[in-house]
């Protein structure tokens, strides 16, 4: 098979916050890029986090530098990307049994990192967050906010594509580099769906592949990137539990942070060191531990309905003492120019936080632009992020608001839990990043709330699949296979929170998926064929 060939100025590897940030940073400097991801946008830690735009309070005690970085970056994003952000504020709360000394020093540590904090009485804290318990021993308000990690990454890519014909190629995996005279000449990739080889020629290559950055660097022969993989698991509730972010005021542990996200809340997170960033999934014991810890701070969580759990892998930079406990690792980032590894046009940016992605992208952008002789300054700290019509469907509640506002009786609802209408799916099909490529059920779900409501895809997987057949996106039994893969993937997150109100939902899902759609038999048949 002959390779599909692309040519660009900069190839950016990794479709998460950092990679999409580098793509936009470079496009704003007039540099043409191709962004690739072996899966799709936010497949790693960028899609597996709280959606918390840190004030820095979380790191104020242990890592003042990261805390200050979070504060500065949070302020920039609140100013320039307000549509991706809910500036809801946050509380740090200690309850009986927590260390009062840690709590007492918190405002001092915040002040050291330039983070404003306001001491609240227990009554004041409960007025802001009625779900808090009586036994609060300390509470502080900080400028925490929430960010829609899907929306901002989609907006980054969408903006870059509009600026200068930079493009995004999903499902494109890097397999190797061709190197001549200390210079990478092309990236050898593969389209993971068609199996087709893809060759990308570029002048500069940026590795922003998050938890996979060490592996990608090694493909170029660089051994200087060394990561620690810290698995974090989170739970998603069916409703919004608190008005703002609520953090436990203690050294970071499981179940410490509850973050609202539109109409839902996210509780987490655990930190377990794993050997490999691939193939992780949330487990029942993790969920039970996070919930028990979270309920100590917010007893209402014991009565809360959770619809799903998910896990992400934090790519942490290895440092002394971090091997045993990911929580002790530095949350800062590092830019590798790889020049001491004998390469002059390769860079890796690794570590860091979602909150600091823009800064990571800026540093990478400065290096790459300089190497290309481009003297344009970084613009992402002054240029507002525009808002694209095809990209506004990831926020919980957004599709429902739009559907009610337009009140078009012909616009049928494909997902009733989240009120995602046919028109929203059609907009994504037409214009969202990756649309020029084949847009599957999974890709649409990533760009919307499809499959994320109470039924977790029981109905909408089938309805959207039907619609994709109607739109000729699917024209073979492959559409049914993709629907199966989608519900199997959703189930991995549903399984650990299966009790209470989710039991009837899952029973119904199985009635539909197996009884009506025959997915179990089709899966068994395919398994038998391939043996």
């Amino acid at each position, binding site marked *: 098979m002959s390779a599909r060939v692309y040519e660009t100025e900069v190839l950016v590897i990794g479709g998460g916050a950092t990679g999409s940030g580098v793509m936009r940073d470079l496009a704003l400097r007039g540099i043409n890029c191709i962004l690739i991801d072996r899966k799709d946008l936010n497949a790693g830690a960028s899609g597996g986090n709280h959606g918390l735009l840190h004030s820095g309070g979380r790191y104020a005690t242990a890592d003042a530098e990261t805390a200050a970085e979070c504060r500065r970056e949070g302020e920039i994003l609140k100013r320039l990307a307000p549509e991706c952000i809910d500036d809801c504020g946050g509380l740090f709360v200690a309850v009986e049994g927590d260390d009062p000394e840690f709590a007492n020093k918190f405002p001092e540590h915040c002040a050291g990192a330039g983070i404003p904090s306001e001491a609240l009485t227990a009554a004041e804290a409960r007025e802001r967050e009625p779900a808090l318990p009586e036994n609060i021993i300390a509470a502080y308000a900080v400028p925490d906010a929430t960010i829609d990690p899907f929306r901002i990454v989609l907006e980054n890519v969408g903006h870059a594509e509009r600026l200068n014909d930079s493009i995004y190629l999903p499902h494109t995996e890097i397999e190797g580099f061709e190197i001549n005279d200390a210079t990478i000449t092309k990236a050898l990739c593969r389209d993971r769906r068609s199996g087709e080889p893809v060759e990308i020629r570029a002048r500069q290559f940026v590795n922003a592949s998050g938890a996979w950055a060490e592996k990608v660097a090694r493909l170029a022969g660089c051994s200087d990137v060394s990561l620690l993989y810290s698995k974090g698991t989170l739970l998603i509730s069916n409703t919004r539990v608190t008005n703002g972010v609520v953090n436990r005021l203690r050294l970071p542990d499981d179940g410490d942070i509850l973050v609202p996200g539109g109409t839902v809340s996210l509780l987490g997170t655990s930190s377990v060191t794993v050997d490999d960033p691939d193939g992780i999934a949330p*487990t*029942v*014991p993790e969920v*039970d531990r996070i*919930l028990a810890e979270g309920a100590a701070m917010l007893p209402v969580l014991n009565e809360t309905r959770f619809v799903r759990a998910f896990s992400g892998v934090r790519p942490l930079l290895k440092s002394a003492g971090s091997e045993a406990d990911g929580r002790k690792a530095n949350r800062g980032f590092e830019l590798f120019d790889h020049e001491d590894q004998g390469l002059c046009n390769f860079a890796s940016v690794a570590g860091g936080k979602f909150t600091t992605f823009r800064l990571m992208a800026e540093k990478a952008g400065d290096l790459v632009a300089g190497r290309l002789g481009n003297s344009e300054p970084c613009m992402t700290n002054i240029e507002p992020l525009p808002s694209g019509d095809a990209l506004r469907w990831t926020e919980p509640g957004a599709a429902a608001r739009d559907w009610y506002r337009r009140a078009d*009786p*012909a*616009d*049928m*609802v*494909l997902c009733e839990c989240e009120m995602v209408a046919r028109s929203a799916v059609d907009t994504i099909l037409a214009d969202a990043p990756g649309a020029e490529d084949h847009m599957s059920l999974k890709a649409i779900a990533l760009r919307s709330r499809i499959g994320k409501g109470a039924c977790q895809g029981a*109905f909408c997987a*089938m*309805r959207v*699949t*039907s*619609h994709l*057949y*109607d739109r*000729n996106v*699917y*024209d*073979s*039994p492959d*559409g*049914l296979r993709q629907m*199966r893969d989608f*519900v*199997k993937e959703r*189930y*991995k997150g549903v*399984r650990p929170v*299966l*009790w*209470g109100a989710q*039991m*009837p939902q*899952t*029973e*119904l899902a*199985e*009635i*539909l*998926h*197996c*009884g*009506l*759609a*025959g*997915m*179990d*038999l*089709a*899966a*068994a048949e395919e*398994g038998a064929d391939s043996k």
Partner: protein
Amino acid sequence: MKRGTRKIETQLAIIGTGIAGFAASIFAGQRGLEVAQFGHSGAMAYTTGYLDLLGVHDQRLQQNPWDALDALRQDEPRHPMSGLSNATIRAAIDGFTDAISDMGIGYTKAGDHNLSGLLPNGLAKPTLSVPDTMRPGITALETGAKTLVVDFEGLQGFSAKAFEVNFRDRWPELSSARLTFPGMENRQVFPEVLARSLETSATQQALAELIRPLLNGVEYVGLPAILGMHMPDEIRARMEEAIGVRLFEVPTIPPAVPGIRLRETFERALPEKGVQLEPQLKVAEVDFRPTGATLHLHGPMEDLEVEASAVLLATGRFLSGGLKSDQDSLSETLLDLPIRQPQDRDAWFRQDYLDPRGHPVNRLGVEVDGRFQPVGADGAPVHERLFAAGAILAHQDWVRQRCGAGLAIATAHAATEAAAAVLG
């Protein structure tokens, strides 16, 4: 203000309004028992309309459900159907299909083999008996007849195109088309609304006129299941006459017409046969005494107190409220009947959603003895006048085994027989 408490008496109180509950009402009525039936769930709207007996055994599709039942008795002796003979099961199913056919929804008589029931996404499933409105589609598939499948603008979840594309390999003479349903332009449409609209001859004629120009020599036309809520066979006959070719229905994503049809038919016909039916009332509490039980129900207008000589529990599983769970344990909701508890929640579900072995939780439920009486840990009946039937029973996985209707009907029959024996 409530009007107070109404008191009624009955011989057999049936709790549950799914296939098992309604089948029990039918069988008990045929036996001359006084019957009262209660329930509150709409889970019947989730059925395709197909009556499965045993479509999958040993993780394989079964062409002959009777042979499969023989194998089931060997391999799964504790399966609720394993204690019943093929002759008994066949008699129960015949009794049920005859009864619903008499009530106005024609069903095919159980044969010696499974049929290939058409599914909306262009696959087929093994099933024993189907509504008469769906039978021609099975013949069309078997013979590869030239067939047109039609869907409607604004109808979510049924795509004639998907049906065509996925059947294409085994049914090359299949084509698809999309129409705007008469009088329903520019709006989202629901199967139930279309079905009620097709009850009028004006809509039948208007739809037939839209279909006729598309025929192009086809022998069959398939529609989503919308051929009326009552008298679907008559509507199909009239439409066939107007179009001039054979017509059939395909099940749709729920809430779907075939199940609603069954429910409305039972709700109309059973009271005519003397059943005291309260299909919207939930039983709150049951007090047993040596010769029967008192059931307490709380309605919006009045409370109800039922003196029954025997009770048949057919409340289904989690979806219809017969079972519930908290974070650590599973329980039966009404009587707190013992449910075997796996080691921990991690053992309820398998890692792979579509694991062909099915999830262990689906085989947990109410344990019964050979007379379908719920038993305690000691193996003795919990109460002499309590019986159970249907999906709430342990040791079956009706979804994966494709045995939902067979399980419901056969165990309802057996439990009713056992109750009748106690009642004398």
